[in-house]
């Protein structure tokens, strides 16, 4: 089958059985790869009501047809599972070099199931595949484990590893790879920890069959040329995602002190040029990347190095915590990565705790003696460690803000910034209605990567609530995640503005199947509806109320900054949902109608 390695690896950690199955041609035809494979397999293989941290849950790691190919950004793989953080669908995209090596080992997907009786790691070197004892690695941080394997096996071996966060089942534990890339959101690391799987080591030397080699080379070169010629390449490569820090601060989107505002009075200390001058030592890209967004930083104050911080971490572990020192933000980034917890959820959760402290809901008696005043860097470092180890006050924060605020009460639920139990990523949405809707309806919870619509808000009028905005969000949700299906990075398209049509001949040359973007968006729409049906299957009360944003965005206007005095009225929040459901072909409670399921050809999948 052109464009595919042709095999899915199944590893049963309970029995130790390791088997390979052919990649079903109809799966490749209908869902292409990546998160398309993930949601299909999740629905088919993980039974309704499975405990996310129990033996019935599985992890599906899937590449796509452009993964590992000479196509810009072909270094992405998808990690799908039932999320311990939300109880719904989790799909985390990971860059680096893991997915390329996975394909060269002859694998399109890896399915991890069951629970090992003891800590193990999965070793894959082409057809040599073994579960090996990891007792001596259990308890170790991610960087140490990765370094140990790299030194022992060689740089070409790619490693995905969990840290103490995953071992201790922190619901927002991540999987770390290549020292600075993560399958970050939803708690994939905790599921791996529940399976007692410390790491996956990969190496391969096989080839991927290609339908038309000449056309593939031509299409790949055209994509690289477009990136090379892009006017934004120089700036993007120099600053990566940190380009947007100053802009978000200017337009009121930079989360500040637990999203109580969208502009930070000391934000300038976190801007891209400051970071570049103070701490960045080099750039780092993923497999086949012509526009490296990763920044490798040296923190002299702490005598340490990290890949990062990128925008999200600057927002959540910087301004959101009242921290205005980029070196300290980078150190918080390092601690989270090394301990294996998501910087977004960790920063958001600590921000919530700091606001509780500010309001007197917590005192030092509650916080293990920590002074949680916004801006207290040392307290943040201590909390990150406590969260990953679920120690003392950190155990509460490790639950995430939805569960923690429910336990604490006293009105703290109102400033728990999440949707569906996932902590909101780093865009304050007091008055950016399309972006707010994107968060409300994102299929993993409050994450930005499916639909990023703030610029559209500013272009057409940020407070407007009109069908065109809803249509834009839906289009983005169908289109953007297709990069997570084909196994590529969307940043070349979104930030370098290369013509997306250039991907069409590349995909056709690799797979032998012509798919226009219209065809691909239809696949995206089918996947979106399946993820919705999965949420509904797993949560009996699932419906409209799950799509509501944090009350902060409709009740609690910022008192400073660019969005001072601005909120989105609750009537408009509901109007957005009404229009969204109608345009999606869903009921007024947000569930796909039978005729929608039928028209998308999904009846058999969800039967």
């Amino acid at each position, binding site marked *: 089958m052109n464009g595919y390695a042709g095999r899915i690896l199944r590893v049963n950690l309970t029995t130790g059985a390791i088997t390979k199955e052919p990649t079903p041609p109809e799966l490749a035809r209908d869902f292409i790869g990546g998160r398309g494979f993930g949601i299909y397999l999740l629905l088919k293989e993980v039974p309704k009501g499975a405990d996310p941290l129990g033996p019935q849950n599985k992890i599906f790691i899937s590449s796509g047809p452009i993964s590992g190919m000479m196509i810009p950004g072909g270094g992405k793989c998808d990690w799908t599972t039932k999320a311990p953080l939300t109880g719904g669908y989790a799909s985390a995209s990971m860059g680096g070099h893991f997915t390329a090596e996975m394909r060269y080992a002859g694998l399109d997907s890896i399915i991890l199931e069951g629970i090992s009786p003891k800590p193990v790691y999965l070793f894959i070197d082409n057809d040599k595949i073994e579960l090996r004892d990891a007792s001596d690695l259990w308890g170790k941080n991610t960087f140490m484990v990765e370094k140990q394997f790299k030194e022992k096996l060689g740089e070409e071996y790619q490693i995905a590893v969990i840290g103490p966060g995953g071992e201790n089942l922190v619901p927002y534990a991540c999987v770390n790879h290549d020292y600075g890339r993560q399958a970050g959101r939803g708690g994939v690391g905790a599921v791996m920890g529940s399976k007692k799987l410390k790491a996956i080591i990969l190496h391969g030397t096989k080839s991927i069959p290609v339908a038309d080699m000449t056309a593939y080379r031509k299409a790949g070169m055209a994509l690289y040329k477009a990136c090379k010629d*892009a*006017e*934004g390449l*120089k*700036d993007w490569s*120099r*600053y990566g*995602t940190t*380009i*947007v820090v*100053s*802009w978000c601060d*200017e*337009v009121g989107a930079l989360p500040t002190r637990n999203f109580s505002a969208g502009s930070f009075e000391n934000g300038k200390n976190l801007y*891209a*040029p400051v970071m570049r001058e103070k701490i960045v030592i080099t750039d780092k890209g993923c497999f086949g990347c012509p526009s490296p967004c990763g920044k490798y930083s040296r923190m002299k104050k702490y005598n340490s190095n990290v890949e990062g911080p*990128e*925008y*999200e971490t600057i927002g959540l572990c910087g301004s959101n915590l009242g921290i205005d020192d980029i070196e300290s933000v980078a150190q918080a980034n390092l601690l989270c990565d090394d301990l294996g917890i998501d910087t977004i959820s960790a920063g958001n959760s600590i921000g919530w705790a700091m606001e509780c402290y500010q309001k007197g809901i917590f005192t030092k008696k509650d916080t293990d003696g920590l002074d949680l005043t916004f801006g207290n860097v040392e307290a943040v470092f201590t909390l990150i460690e406590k969260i990953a180890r679920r120690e003392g006050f950190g155990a509460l924060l490790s639950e995430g803000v939805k569960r923690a605020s429910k336990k604490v009460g006293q009105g703290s639920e109102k400033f728990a910034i999440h949707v569906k139990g996932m902590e909101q990523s780093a*865009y304050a949405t007091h008055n950016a209605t399309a972006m707010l809707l994107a968060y409300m309806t994102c299929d993993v919870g409050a994450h*930005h*990567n499916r639909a*990023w619509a*703030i*610029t559209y808000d*500013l*272009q057409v009028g940020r407070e407007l609530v009109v069908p065109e905005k809803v249509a834009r969000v839906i289009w983005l949700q169908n289109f*953007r995640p297709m990069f997570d299906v084909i196994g590529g990075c*969307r*940043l070349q*398209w*979104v*930030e*370098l*503005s290369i013509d997306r049509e250039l991907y069409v001949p590349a995909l056709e040359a690799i797979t032998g199947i012509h798919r226009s973007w219209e065809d691909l968006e239809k696949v995206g729409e089918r996947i979106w509806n399946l993820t919705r049906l999965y949420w509904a299957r797993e949560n009996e009360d699932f419906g409209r109320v799950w799509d509501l944003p944090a009350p902060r965005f409709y009740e609690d206007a910022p008192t400073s900054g660019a969005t001072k005095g601005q909120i989105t009225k609750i009537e408009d929040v509901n109007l957005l949902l009404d229009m969204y459901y109608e345009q999606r072909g869903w009921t007024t409670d947000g569930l796909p109608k039978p005729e929608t399921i039928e028209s998308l050809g999904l009846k058999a999948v969800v039967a």
Partner: protein
Amino acid sequence: MTATIRLGASLKNLLGSQAEFIVEPGHKVRETLLLLGIKPELVAMVSVNDEMKDKDYIIQEGDALRLMAVIGGG
């Protein structure tokens, strides 16, 4: 006595505008954008002679400015 402003593809596409403008120096970037009919908040990055600057930067003679929008986020 001029400077040039070049719009990156993302911003050009967003605005549906021409790619390059010749402007007079001596004004802030923000003011110049308004004169050109460009909403300053749509410009995410201002590069002046390959260095990132803010919109309060006063354009100097001979400066080469490059402006970018962000349409996709992280």
